[in-house]
């Protein structure tokens, strides 16, 4: 199995014709895949796989992605509606069911190797993907929805539907289709003044063949895209009616609470079920290989009974693993700093460390399952319902077709609910099997969630850089370990002698994809180090970067824009500073400037974060801005506060008290601007994250002269001359249930 590298990217493009994304999406949305309609298509007004128009003029767009609050459903529907010339107020969305027909990212096997979407490639890196297996994916991750499904699926579907409606009208009126036009959900024939609504034409249109390469609109004729209609998923989120995975309820359902082997890979050695079985409401104690569960008639009773158990787990031989031992192994693996060219006027070296991180989605993991005979039903929230179906089937020893998965809203994803991370589905179906045929909802506590995540890997890098006598960089190289490899090490700067070499240092803490994946570590490493190089050269960190971007106009434009937004260079009071960082990931270039203030009284405050973003084009500017705002807060929690530590092979942190988050009071002002370029659409959910941490630490350096090389920043508070101001805001109210504040 090839790893995902720049080289295979180009290779895949050559093989599949015109770029990797086109390769994958071209397969997913190959002509045949637009025409999956039922026998009753005409009756229902189903024009293509993805678009149905009913006589009441309602247009329903089927979306093969899940909604996690990123606005995907709305953005994709906008892309279809735009091409269709629809009246936006009549557009509705429906998430596609978990069936192979609606897969959005089949593994593509091209000549010369296996090519898989980048987001999946991480699964390969992490060894959970078997080369011989072919999976169906219906994944929402890797910031791919708009740029692959939208570009190659929804646009084509909308344009095809429009052509079919045009043909239907033209036939009916006996005029050439070319003389008709679509406008606001109507087909009009200007010469005769005739017009018909989409709803009147859909049944006839649905009998026509689906055009396979309909003409797409030019961007300067867009009327729906580039505007900001309200997101379709928001109204049910303000009145309590939205149903998340954890909310699913079905008659007769029981509840399960879970204790999982505290050391990853550990096994349940023994448990005396009697104390729990004697408690009210308890149905059964279920011993699993790696966990024990109590099934009861309410979650609280299940939890209380679970607490009465004293299960014994083994530690899978990992009982001595700790954060200290892992970083000691990293340090040893990195060896001496990379060699620098002879004749350098100045050599700079630095080590950087980032911790393990949990996703801590606001909704803890939850999954309801009902197993009966050789069939099963599953209700949950996942970033890939098709893969979840396979996981459930495998756990039960049945075929995927024998499992029905209903995907509900996700209370946050951030990568936790991606394929290969479906332990919560796997456990829930095994528990349900033990009490078959009763449906059981397994709810993870926040403690389960924090202690049994697939963690953003801890990582360390050892950088060396060389400057000539004039302060120009001759070389920048690094050894890194822990974070895996990838394009994340790429730097846009014109430095001739560069290189990043991965060193092996294994540990048993299970890794996962965390919003922006490898870029979250490497963005911090490389943008911290280039800042250190600028300082060593005696140059302004913005000017130093800018001078190295002569051949990279998009990067340069982003850097210049964010510097202008932040008023870079304007004097600041003592104790304040600005820091800048520039990263590309998921096809999007992002520059960020953080403005921080550091004082003994006020502590460390990130006052304002500016972001300039080139993701090609923006479908819905307001919801894109919301993504930027949210991602900056998400990244700031990680940079300032978050750390998963390991002791005795176990995760130490338990809940939001010791795994704290940024609150409203600490949230900075945020200003975001988008640069429209003619580049291929990039992602948006993730690329905002990587530049944030280095922008903040670079700003701390500008304000205090202290270089923070290890995250989270709160551990370095003393070095910055501050007393740490940790999670006081998560402190409990004085008595249980006192007013929330």
């Amino acid at each position, binding site marked *: 199995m090839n790893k995902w590298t720049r080289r295979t990217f180009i290779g895949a493009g050559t093989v599949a014709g015109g770029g990797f994304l086109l390769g994958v999406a071209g397969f997913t949305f190959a002509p045949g895949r637009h025409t999956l309609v039922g026998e009753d298509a005409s009756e229902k007004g189903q024009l293509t796989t993805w678009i149905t128009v009913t006589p009441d003029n309602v247009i329903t767009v089927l979306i093969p992605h899940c909604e*996690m*609050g990123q*606005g995907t459903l709305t953005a994709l529907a906008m892309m279809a509606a735009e091409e269709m010339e629809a009246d936006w107020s009549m557009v509705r969305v429906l998430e596609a069911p978990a069936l192979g027909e609606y897969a959005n990212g089949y593994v593509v096997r091209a000549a010369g190797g296996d090519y898989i979407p980048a987001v999946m490639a991480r699964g390969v890196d992490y060894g959970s993907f078997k080369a011989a297996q072919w999976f169906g994916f219906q994944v929402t991750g890797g910031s791919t929805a708009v740029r692959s499904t939208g570009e190659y699926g929804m646009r084509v579907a909308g344009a095809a539907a429009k052509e079919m409606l045009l043909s239907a009208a033209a036939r009916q009126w006996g005029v050439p289709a070319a003389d008709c036009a679509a406008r606001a959900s109507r087909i009009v024939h200007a010469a005769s003044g005739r017009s018909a609504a989409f709803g009147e034409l859909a049944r006839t249109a649905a009998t026509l063949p689906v055009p396979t390469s309909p003409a797409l609109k030019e961007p300067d004729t867009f009327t729906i895209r580039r505007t900001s209609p*309200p*997101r379709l*998923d*928001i*109204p049910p*989120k*303000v*009145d*309590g*009616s*939205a149903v*998340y995975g*954890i*909310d699913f*309820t079905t008659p007769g359902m029981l*509840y399960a609470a879970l204790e999982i082997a505290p050391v990853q890979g550990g096994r349940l050695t023994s448990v005396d079920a009697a104390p729990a079985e004697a408690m009210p409401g308890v149905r059964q104690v279920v011993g699993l290989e790696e966990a024990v569960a109590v099934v009861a008639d*309410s*979650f*609280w*009773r299940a939890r209380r009974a679970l607490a009465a158990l004293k299960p014994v787990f083994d530690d899978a031989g990992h009982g001595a693993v700790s954060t200290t031992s892992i970083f000691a192994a990293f340090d040893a693996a990195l060896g001496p700093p990379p060699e620098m060219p002879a004749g350098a006027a100045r050599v700079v070296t630095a080590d950087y460390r980032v911790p393990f991180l949990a996703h801590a*989605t*606001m*909704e*803890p993991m939850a999954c309801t399952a009902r197993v009966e005979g050789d069939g099963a039903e599953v209700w949950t929230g996942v970033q890939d319902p098709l893969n979840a179906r396979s996981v459930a089937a495998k756990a039960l020893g049945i075929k995927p077709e024998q499992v029905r998965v209903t995907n509900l*809203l996700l*209370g*946050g994803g*951030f990568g936790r609910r991606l394929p290969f991370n479906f332990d919560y589905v796997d456990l829930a179906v095994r528990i349900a099997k033990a009490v078959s045929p009763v449906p059981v909802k397994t*709810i993870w*506590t*926040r403690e389960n969630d924090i202690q049994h995540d697939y963690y953003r890997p801890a990582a360390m890098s050892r950088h060396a850089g060389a400057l000539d006598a004039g302060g120009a960089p001759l070389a920048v190289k690094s050894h890194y370990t822990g974070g895996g490899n990838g394009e994340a090490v790429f730097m846009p700067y014109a430095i001739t002698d560069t290189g990043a070499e991965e060193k092996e240092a294994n540990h048993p803490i299970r890794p996962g994809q965390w919003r922006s994946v490898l870029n979250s570590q490497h963005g911090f490493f490389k943008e911290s180090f280039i800042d250190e190089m600028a300082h060593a050269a005696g140059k302004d960190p913005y000017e130093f970067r800018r001078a190295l971007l002569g051949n990279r106009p998009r990067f340069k434009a982003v850097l210049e824009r964010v510097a202008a937004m932040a008023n870079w260079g304007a004097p600041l009071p003592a104790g304040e500073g600005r820091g800048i960082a520039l990263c590309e990931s998921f096809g999007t270039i992002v520059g960020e400037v953080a403005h921080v203030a550091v004082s003994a009284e006020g502590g460390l405050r990130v006052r304002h974060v500016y972001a300039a973003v080139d993701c090609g084009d923006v479908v819905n500017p307001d*919801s894109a801005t*919301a993504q930027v*705002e*949210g*991602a*900056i*807060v*998400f990244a700031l929690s990680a940079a300032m506060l978050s750390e998963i530590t390991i002791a005795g092979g176990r995760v130490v942190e338990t*809940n*939001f*008290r010791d795994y704290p*988050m940024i*609150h*409203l*009071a600490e*949230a900075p*002002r*945020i200003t975001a601007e988008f640069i429209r370029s003619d580049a291929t659409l990039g992602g948006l959910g993730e690329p905002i994250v990587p530049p944030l941490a280095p922008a903040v630490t670079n700003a701390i350096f500008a304000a205090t002269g202290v270089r923070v090389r290890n995250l989270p920043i709160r551990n370095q508070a003393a070095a910055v001359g501050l007393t740490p101001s940790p999670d006081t805001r*998560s402190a*409990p*109210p004085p008595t249980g*249930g*006192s*007013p*929330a*504040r």
Partner: protein
Amino acid sequence: MAITFTVNGQEQSLDVEPQMPLLWALREQLGLTGTKFGCGISACGACTVHLDGRPVRSCVLPVSAVDGKTVTTIEGLASHGVLHAVQEAWIAHQVPQCGYCQSGLIMAVVGLLAQNPAPSDDQIDAAITNICRCGTFARVRRAIHSLAQRGKATS
């Protein structure tokens, strides 16, 4: 012993352990799943409801504590199908992302504005301590200020 209280205008009687947290009584006994579980230790605010008009974190409040009292959940905020002004502002400012924390946030903000119709930024900071992993805080603040403005305009 049955515990009797009013939820969203309706009297309810529950025969459950008095220590059962109100959160689980609402979600599982009464089917009001709009109130969310986020931490169970009063650290996140996802479970915020109103007890006699004041916001409380229901995950640590034993159901016995509401005996004879009045509870309002997110489902009871709209009246006769008309959204509360805070809910309207949440749509106007497109506040929710994943939305999971928003029931609790909205209940906390309704509680704040009932006490202080035009809070300053510092007062907002002190009162709204809910966790939102999606990071919707900029819009939360904007929506609160818009409501304060509206309050001023109509008073």
